[in-house]
């Protein structure tokens, strides 16, 4: 039996593999060193690579990401941690205006090979300012690659691709998945950015999900199977590049699309995907397209309330059932 690893451990493993290969890879962030990160996703890095490659910073998100950019354009491959993805708002200028634009606006003179890693998402009762799924902020900005793995193996493989990428990558690690387990991938495992994965084949409806919503979609698919509805589940894995062709291919078979999104409905990635499908895949559709997404509210603290906001498998089942009957 293959070795098993948690999603949490996969983060440190993925970074460590790249730090071993390439001395240009360095890490910076708050409490990432001795403490091994608030989510223990950088455990062991300081010990193995020393304080010259694993840097603890002050609480200065702009300086962290801005310095990562400066290092990236001068020959390093920095991996910056922003502790919670909500805090991307504190350095948003770098993500929105600097990092994704500098290559273009200098006519290709500089390259920005960096990764900004961040703990994303809700479901843990952390409240409105520590629970958001913020991938969609990044989706509004051309020039950022956006990765959001759902399994430990993908964490390792996509980190490898992200760190080796000459383009900036925002890497969303889902807090709700940190304790989940999966096989340890082989050495030099790479998952190319921009390739969605069909994680369950099915003929009746296509469920497209990301990160924490992949297990939710799979659970829904299992439930639907009991009712005789055969759902295909696609793990998008990246928002940019967005693997639209994989989705269209699936729709050729199923003719029905449901997106499963942790983020609020307004401005969610599912909307962009659906808009491409409603254009290029219009002829394939035999039923309305449905987006199962979070309510358009801040994340509440109490479980009883948070459960009302973030989609669960039964919400997905209900949505699909209605479509199947269309």
């Amino acid at each position, binding site marked *: 039996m293959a070795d098993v690893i948690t999603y949490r451990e996969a983060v440190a493993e993925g970074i460590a593999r790249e730090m071993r290969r390439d001395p240009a890879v360095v890490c910076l962030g708050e409490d990432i060193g001795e403490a091994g990160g608030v989510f223990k996703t950088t455990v062991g890095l300081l010990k193995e690579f020393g304080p010259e490659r694993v840097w*603890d910073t002050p609480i200065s998100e702009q300086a962290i990401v801005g310095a990562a950019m400066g290092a990236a354009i001068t020959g390093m491959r920095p991996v910056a941690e922003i502790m919670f993805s909500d805090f991307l708002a504190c350095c948003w200028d770098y993500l929105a205006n600097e990092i994704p634009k500098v290559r273009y606006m200098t006519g290709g003179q500089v390259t920005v090979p960096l990764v900004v890693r961040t703990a994303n998402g809700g479901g843990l009762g*952390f409240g409105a300012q*520590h629970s958001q799924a913020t991938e969609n902020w990044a989706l509004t900005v051309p020039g950022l690659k956006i990765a959001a793995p759902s399994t430990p193996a993908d964490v390792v493989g996509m980190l490898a691709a992200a760190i080796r990428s000459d383009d900036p990558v925002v890497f969303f690690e889902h807090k709700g998945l940190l304790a989940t387990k999966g096989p340890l991938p082989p050495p030099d495992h790479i998952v190319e950015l921009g390739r969605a994965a069909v994680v369950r084949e099915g003929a009746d409806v296509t469920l497209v999900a990301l990160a924490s919503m992949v297990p939710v979609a799979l659970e829904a698919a299992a439930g639907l199977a009991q009712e005789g509805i055969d759902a295909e589940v696609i793990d998008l894995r990246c928002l940019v590049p967005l693997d639209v062709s994989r989705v269209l291919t699936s729709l050729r078979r199923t003719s029905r699309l449901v997106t499963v999104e942790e983020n609020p409905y307004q401005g969610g990635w599912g909307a962009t995907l659906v808009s491409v499908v409603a254009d290029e895949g219009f002829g394939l559709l035999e039923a309305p397209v449905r987006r199962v997404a979070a309510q358009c509210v*801040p994340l509440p603290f*109490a479980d009883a*309330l948070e*459960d009302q906001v973030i989609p669960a498998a039964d919400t997905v089942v209900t949505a699909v059932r209605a479509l199947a009957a269309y």
Partner: protein
Amino acid sequence: MEATELLALYEQMALIRRTEKAAHDLFLQGLVKGTTHLAAGQEAIAVGASAALRADDYVFATYRGHHHAMARGATPEECLAELMSRATGLCRAKGGSMHLTKASTGMLGSYAIVGSHLPMAVGAAWSARLRGTGQLAVAFFGDGATNIGAFHEALNLAAVWKLPVLFVCENNLYMEYTRIADVTAVPRPAADRAPSYGIPGEVVDGNDVVAVHEAVDRFARRARAGDGPAVLEAETYRHFGHSRADPATYRPAEEVERWLRHDPLDLARGRLAELGVPPETSTAADERARAVVEQAVAAAKAAPPPDPREALTDVWAEGGAAWRT
């Protein structure tokens, strides 16, 4: 300070300490979800400062804000009910430990993005000036917050506009698990920065409720007189780890020891004794606090969970959450 006043402050501190202890226990019992950042050890700052403020002044705090909510009149029951996700919680279970707020007494919120509330306090002070009310705004924040951009912008704006706002840094030596000294260019992260804004900066023993009270009172008078903001850096120490998940093993035993010996409650008891208050009187106050908290725990436990429909209220001022027609 007179003995009666100090005794009242002591009792408030005891109430906070016991509430924090209860929060910790409830957490271990699985009755508090999410995370909590306990302020045990830092009570004197909230209580001493609050006692120097007017009832209509504004307070802004951080995710480590239980003590500030309580110092501004939130009851242990309201706080614990919030932590336990009850409908009777301070924020009706929508905020949680990190966002305790009691707007009705001017406690305008606990904010969980480090440094974010400093500009808000500046704005509240500006508002007070515009309305001519003589109110003051106070922002409480950690040592770690002194290295974030919002700190700089807020202090400069407050100084330029000479606003009635106080910046009170609770320097507990650590951000989460990292010593503030390791990531800050000056020894006094807050006070040493005050000259950058041409305003007074002062260090005070944050565990001495009388000293905190005196300093805040002095700066508050100054600010109300129109002489502008000030920075107060209160030295203190947290008794628990950073948050619920943190055993705080990164702190040297000797350091912890030393600070536990410099406990704000003990210090206040000592001062009470000096003022001739017999130990039984202090103990009685502590006992009253214990009883209040015990009863608060019971009441919070008995309170109902929030109505699930509450998830879709309170986005807009009209009460709802509709984003489309």
